[in-house]
């Protein structure tokens, strides 16, 4: 805020002059960056494809409906696989993420200078890489199949569960922990009686939330060969079998909505 003297009396401005120049310069920079980025992005664009995109879209839509309902017979097993990838992947992630979270939380880590940075690094590395990229790597290493999908989901989820869980651990009520320690309990007992009961609700919420996300993610892992319904999606897209694609989209959407409903119900029951 600034008030400036002018010949015909003071003028009120929201910002001082250097502030408004900086702000103006910031916006200019953003516009400039946008133009540059747009140039870089569209350098090799064949615009003819874009101009007939509405036509293409209409055409695509025309070919997508009606869905080929009979294809459903071939989707039950991939769907079951998809759910397994998400569920087993989440379980594996829990097993790996819980110790990492305890090592990463400031108030439970055995060594804040050595162990904590390693645990934080594991969490960050896991979070930075999308499940689909993990799957891409694992398929290259392990070969296509459910196992690659499960491990990909687990690797991505470690960071998510680990981060939220260690934040929950750092927020616990220390007086309850102190009270348990004062009884002469050992460190493992303090963990069991003082800390674990406090983080259980957060833990349940986090894992259910992640399971829900994992259901979504596992539906597309098949695109890179990591099993599940994505395999059928890829085959149908590659074969231009659009009515099948539509059916797969419907199945995926339904599964996602159902899993959201299930996780909301379970969460309500647990907490």
């Amino acid at each position: 805020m600034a008030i400036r003297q002018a010949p015909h009396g003071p003028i009120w401005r929201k910002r001082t002059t250097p502030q408004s120049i900086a702000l103006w310069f910031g916006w200019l920079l953003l516009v400039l960056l946008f133009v540059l980025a747009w140039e870089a992005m569209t350098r090799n664009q064949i615009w003819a494809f874009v101009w007939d995109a509405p036509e293409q879209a209409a055409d695509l839509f025309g070919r997508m409906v009606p869905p080929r309902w009979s294809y459903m017979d071939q989707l039950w097993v991939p769907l079951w696989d998809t759910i397994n990838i998400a569920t087993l992947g989440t379980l594996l992630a829990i097993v790996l993420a819980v110790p990492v979270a305890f090592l990463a939380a400031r108030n439970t880590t055995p060594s804040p200078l050595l162990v904590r940075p390693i645990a934080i690094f594991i969490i960050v590395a896991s979070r930075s890489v999308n499940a689909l990229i993990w799957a891409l790597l694992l398929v290259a290493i392990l070969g296509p199949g459910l196992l690659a999908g499960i491990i990909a989901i687990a690797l991505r989820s470690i960071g998510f569960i680990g981060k939220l869980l260690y934040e929950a651990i750092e927020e616990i009520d220390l007086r309850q922990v102190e009270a348990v320690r004062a009884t002469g309990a050992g460190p493992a007992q303090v963990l069991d009686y003082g800390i674990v009961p406090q983080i259980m609700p957060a833990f349940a919420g986090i894992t259910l939330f992640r399971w829900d996300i994992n259901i979504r993610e596992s539906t597309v892992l098949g695109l890179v060969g990591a099993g599940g319904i994505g395999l059928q999606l890829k085959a149908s897209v590659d074969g231009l079998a659009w009515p099948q694609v539509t059916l797969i989209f419907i199945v995926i959407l339904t599964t996602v909505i159902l899993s959201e409903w299930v996780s909301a119900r379970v969460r309500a029951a647990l907490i």
Partner: protein
Amino acid sequence: MSEGATRYPRHWRRPPLISDGRLRWAIYAGVLVYLVVGIGAVEVNWGRLSEGWERGLRFLGGFVEPDFISRWDDIRAGLIESLAMTLTATVVGVLISIPVGIGAARNIAPSPVYLACRALIALSRSLQEIIVAILFVAMVGFGPLAGFLTLAFATIGFLAKLLAEDIEDIDAAQVEAIRATGAGWWQVLDYGIRSQVTPRLIGLSLYRLDINFRESAVIGIVGAGGVGATLNTALDRYEYDSAAAILILIIVIVLVTEYVSGWVRGRVQ
């Protein structure tokens, strides 16, 4: 004390979470059966696995000695595409989500507009980025433009929903106060709502910038441009050292954007 006068129980069990014993055992059994069946369905090809073990080691070796040089031109082009997609999609996505978000706020939008905006948000949120990318690639062809459209579409669902919730949560008293001065709808929007929502909008946009970069690394797999395509190619050619270099770059850029956007958000709010 009257010891011995009253007898106290010598056994105690913690009351179980599910009080109905039969239901509890049914759930235990169900979980057990699921685990057996589920894990049983995972076919493990041990021959392939031992072969994979050796590849895994080679890949880890790639992390120790990542090769930025051999495929540098591809990597650079991919990264520039990814960053360009991220920036343009975020800007355009934010610009579109502002009117959509206002339209989806129950307290200021008329009912038909509200329903239309909410439907758009729901559609954007329930479709996975990768699926949207497949559709856009089919419409506009391979390349980063499809990626841009995908990310912008996803940004709308994310940002407009949070923006609408923010507007619905704003302090009604402040809006009342502005309205009481005789301000029109646009003025109410400008003075009563913009001032309350802007810092959060900037914060959320930066957060979405992070997410968009991460996603831009993925949608290349289905042909929507960006560094994901480069990574896919490197893995197809079994060039693990180049793939490791790309992954390291992705992680570093994610960390940097996360740090910068966190810093800016801290300054703005």
